[in-house]
């Protein structure tokens, strides 16, 4: 009997039973949310981006599906503030699952404040959201500027001992920003966030999202995300979490061979009609794939497509 290939992986020092976690912003600011996300079978839970104080977010419509298979959102980083971290971490511990707190802020100090709370409450790691394309002052303006990335990451890494992962979005300087994040002490990178986009209703002749602009996610952005992962891995051989348009197991595989040690899934959760099985189904297929190619574990194929 052949042994089943292993899907165990580690990223940024976090040990994972398998490479599939959820993407930030799909639920994730209450213990109930954590319970639901855990029931999907993710190997770790990533929370919604948490800011120090409650943030109201935009008025609906905040999330809509598009005819190109993607999702467009401008939630506006709505969250109840850092107080919710405690109950989420407790819930995750009860369930025995690693929990990564996504951290947002308008200033370096705000990032550090939430990160400290996360560490204090016993979170597994921190993901710095440096890339939201539609929350003014909280997002992509930071990730686009390698110097700002450096100082936010540095500031957070200097006050916390748990792993710090920097989440970057698509930008002209994403490669440089990635380098700066690593230099500043990030143990890993999540690539990428949504891409700024919009949709207009051609009958009422109005933009649909209340915020007018939003972030595009889902299958449309996948080939772009794979490209970013590939380029960043090629340059830095960093620990990368691939994010963007993972819908089928093949997308996970593609991210991994491009250089990701794990992936995050967002949009696909919603479109799946078998939410409580689809992670498991992807894992089965990934095992079969590794077996077919003669590999013993998924870590063997991380970045293997770089050899050309």
């Amino acid at each position: 009997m052949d042994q089943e290939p292993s899907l165990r992986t580690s990223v940024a020092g976090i040990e994972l039973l398998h490479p599939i976690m959820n993407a930030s912003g799909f639920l994730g600011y209450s213990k109930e949310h954590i319970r639901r996300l855990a029931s999907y079978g993710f190997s770790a839970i990533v929370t919604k981006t948490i800011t120090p104080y409650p943030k109201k977010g935009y008025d609906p419509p905040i999330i809509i599906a598009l005819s190109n298979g993607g999702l467009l959102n401008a939630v506006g980083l709505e969250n109840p503030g850092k107080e919710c971290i405690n109950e989420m971490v407790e819930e995750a511990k009860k369930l025995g699952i690693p929990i990564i707190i996504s951290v947002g802020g308008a200033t370096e100090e705000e990032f550090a404040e939430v990160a400290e709370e996360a560490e204090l409450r016993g979170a597994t790691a921190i993901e710095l959201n440096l890339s939201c394309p539609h929350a003014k002052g909280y997002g992509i303006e930071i990730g686009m500027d390698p110097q700002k990335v450096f100082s936010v990451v540095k500031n957070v890494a200097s006050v916390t001992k748990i792993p710090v992962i920097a989440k970057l979005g698509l930008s002209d300087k994403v490669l440089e920003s990635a380098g700066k994040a690593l230099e500043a002490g990030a143990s890993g990178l999540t690539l990428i966030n949504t891409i700024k986009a919009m949709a207009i209703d051609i009958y009422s002749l109005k933009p649909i999202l209340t915020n007018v602009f939003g972030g595009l996610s889902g299958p449309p952005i996948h080939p772009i995300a794979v490209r970013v992962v590939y380029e960043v891995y090629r340059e830095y051989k960093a620990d990368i979490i691939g994010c963007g348009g993972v819908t089928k197991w093949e997308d996970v595989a593609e991210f991994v061979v491009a250089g990701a040690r794990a992936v995050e899934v967002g949009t696909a959760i919603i479109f799946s009609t078998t939410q409580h099985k689809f992670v498991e189904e992807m894992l089965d297929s990934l095992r079969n794939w590794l077996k077919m190619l003669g590999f013993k574990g998924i870590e063997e194929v991380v970045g293997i497509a770089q050899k050309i």
Partner: protein
Amino acid sequence: MLESTRLRYIVKPARVIENKPISGSMHILRIELIRHSVEVEPFNFFNIWVPRVDEIPLSIAYADSKSLFFIYRIRGVGTKTLSQLKPGEFIGVKGPLGKGFKPLNNRRWLIVAGGVGIAPVPFLLSFAIKTNTKIDVIWGVKKSDEFFDLSNVFGLKQRGWRLIKVSEDCQDGLCGTALSVLNSVSINDYDVVLAIGPQQMLLSFCRMLKDRENVYVSLENMVKCGIGVCGSCYLKGSHKLLCIDGPVFKCSEVVDHLESSIS
């Protein structure tokens, strides 16, 4: 499957055909989708996009081959603006959302509706007529002028269902609240008992009937995205989301939520 989910979650353009008061407190909205068609079940709801103003969850009140109907009460800015839209204006709808909840063949159902909780009932009745399920509806309102003629508005056949009206001003129908009438009904005769209306009413309903299996409520909660992402509609103490697991739940699933929501 995937495609059909996606289609449900797209904001589909629609034209207002009719939009007017039908009773002292309620309005009826009739719309036609411009480029899509949808399949709807009772208790599905739609997020109605009022351009540049709001996205409002409303239960499907009735649907025919061409139109979708909604019954709503003005509560805040969103519903107020909605009520001002004129025939010919355009809106968008995201849906059908939520899980349908519909009768199997030859059942007996009891519906307890409070106020605008009556909204999904006409469409439910039209399904019941097709499946030969008998439905008794207890409809309670505060003021009698809230009543409108259920069967007339949607041309429902007067067959297989009964309406028991109850008003707190005692001007029309029985005198009291919907729940007060429930005490004089023999619950055991029904395969399904479902309440829909204000949270306080649903809580009392579930407390009254908590030891039974077949009692349901159709809940309201803060619905923002309607598609299971934003988390605003989660039920406290549960991992359920109203927008994709509901709006109809067993009492046992929501009693914690109701207890902690109503202080």
